[in-house]
């Protein structure tokens, strides 16, 4: 099953390396990884997408949680989420194909952000499969360059979300509410 993890970590030199080398060292296969600032000063937020058995993903979560600079790790796979990815796609555009491309851009609610003599640069933001479809449709025109951010995720604010607006951790305490996700629960 595909899992989406959110990890918050101190924004210090080397921390990204600690996280990424952990995946390599423990032989976990990461599908996408994106990182940027969070709402907490000094704390970066990483979204990790990986395919794997639940047991392996549980290990990933626990091993990540063990890193001293990682403050929170959450598996949000079974939570309602907003998932977005941004892509910049530079596609070949001859005068006869321009309008066809522009039409696709309109249908996908993407934008043309740069126009060159022989190419167009398109920006699309959306769920990953929408980005994939547009990429698929643009491919025949000739994609010259592409940059994708990988997924970023936020848990939706639901009706019965304990008044936390879907926020899965609390920044005041900087303490996780659902980490470690270990098998502390009692079977039987």
């Amino acid at each position, binding site marked *: 099953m595909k899992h989406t993890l959110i990890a918050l970590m101190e924004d210090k030199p*080397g921390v990204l390396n600690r996280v990424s080398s952990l995946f390599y060292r423990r032989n976990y296969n990461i599908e996408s990884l994106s990182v940027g600032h969070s709402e907490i000063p000094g704390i970066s937020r990483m979204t990790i997408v990986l395919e794997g058995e639940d047991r392996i993903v549980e*290990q990933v979560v626990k091993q990540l949680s*063990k890193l001293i600079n990682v403050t929170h790790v959450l598996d949000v796979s079974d939570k309602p989420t907003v998932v977005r990815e941004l892509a910049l796609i530079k596609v070949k555009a001859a005068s006869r194909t321009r309008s066809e491309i522009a039409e696709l851009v309109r249908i996908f609610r993407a934008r043309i952000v740069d126009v060159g003599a022989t190419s167009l640069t398109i920006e699309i933001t959306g769920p990953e499969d929408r980005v994939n479809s547009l990429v698929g449709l643009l491919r025949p025109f000739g994609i010259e360059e592409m940059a994708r951010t990988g997924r970023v995720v936020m848990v939706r604010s639901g009706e019965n979300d304990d008044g936390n607006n879907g926020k899965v951790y609390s920044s005041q305490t900087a*303490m996780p509410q659902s980490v*470690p996700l270990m*098998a*502390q629960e*009692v*079977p039987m």
Partner: protein
Amino acid sequence: MKLTGAQVVWESLVREGVETVFGVPGGAVLPLYHALAEYPLHHVLVRHEQAAAHAADGYARATGKVGVCIATSGPGATNLVTGLATAYMDSSPVVAFTGQVPSPVIGTDAFQEVHITGITLPITKHNYLVTHAQELPTVIKEAFYIARTGRPGPVLIDISKDAQIAEIEYAYPDEVHLPGYRLPASDFSPQIQAAARMLNEAQRPVIIAGHGVILSGTEDRLVELAEKGHIPVVVTLLGIGAMPDEHPLCLGMGGMHGQGHANMALSEADLILSLGSRFDDRFTGPPSTFAPRARIIHVDVDPAEIGKNVPADLAVVGDLKDVLPALTPLVEARDRSAWLSCIREWREESAQLDILAQETDDLIPQYVVRQIWHATQGNAIMVSDVGQNQMWEAQYFVHRRRRGLISSGGLGTMGFALPAAIGAQIGCRGERVWVIAGDGGFQMNIQELATVVQEQVPLKIAILNNGYLGMVRQWQEFFFERRYSGSRLSGPDFAQVARAYGIPGLTIREKSEVVPAIAQAMASDGPMLLDFHIVPEENVYPMVAPGSAIHNMIRHPGTVRGGKEE
């Protein structure tokens, strides 16, 4: 108080209660060494930085305190690597200091620059690169805290030379602020109740006692629990000493070279309570074949160990210091005499008893280890190396003393024993410390005999000299058509080498010389080396072939079946 970065380091170490540091100086730590003389710290100069790390590790394992080592940048730092990995695999609390080139030239491939924080990333619990002296007090405070709390482990602090020289106004923090470092809760009553219920219902329970019992200092609590519930205990290699081997409920070591009855008990158990062990593959065999009839309760301070190798039916994440006092009162005294007598019957088939009972004039290693045990009455800190010698020590020495065995379990580092024993002896000056090593491993850190002399460490060193990389040869004999490729080994005359270093040395070739030689070593106040020329092709029995379930043991010579190579 104004201090240089170098003074900050030593001042902070003194405040952490450190008394001894093991190391080798060099260009990038000259400021540190210069300031060292001003502080009440004993510096032990080793002959190779690997030994500094092993000595710090041995010191930590023998005393329960944090061991400290220091090395210069570049080659000094890389020489620490094996020692840090050894400490990491065995959860030993060590703090290592390395010098780094001045911060303006970091990243330029300066003379003796290596990226040691990058190199040691996967083999330390945490590490730091410090380029500003102001960061040092906090970093050192955190490093000691991280090294000794939770699941202990090594922490490395790399300090640029300019940060050692810079002056700061010194204040040592009282507390650490580590938002990403959480220790497990100490309240887990639902889990404890469930664990007690499962134990009380079990007909054939077994406790596995791992290194965690020793690291948490809960040896007495373990005995209390076992005695109350009449529950037999199997120890792991690093769990040896968690319970006295002679205790009627102690079944001894399990695993690849464990006792037959211990492995049978694990295989037939209906419940396993694992206390601070990580289900290492050398202990469990293939996980799918391990304890097929048992439900498993896994107690560990590190949540990541739960379910990593063997799935747990119940997990208790916590420090045994909290878990055992909560659990034992809920455990009922049950009559388990049927189970215990069943185990007793298995015990009578023990390969070890056969081997000891065998009448031979040959100088066999099992006899040597037994005689050392007799001479010490088990009151010694044994430090074993890696290979057959390690297994014979584990099998034939009857461990009684707490923290009575120090060995490299997880990494299996040849060359560990001598430097680790130096650390152990310096940490426990009044104790008897014995090294048991093979002729191969001993040559991997033989230079530390000089440290033994310089520091006047009264180690008793027994080399079980078989002229082979014996454990390798045994595998080749069993599983690789007896082709002894690369495992025939020549060595020096170890007794003469010892004498050259200034240590009395004896060569023992006859069985009849064993007891007098050991007595002579015991009687001397200083160090002594005994080179036992044992039967060259003696094997370790029993043995579980790699890939086999642990109840499938090769018990005796002549029963070798082809095993599967992993």
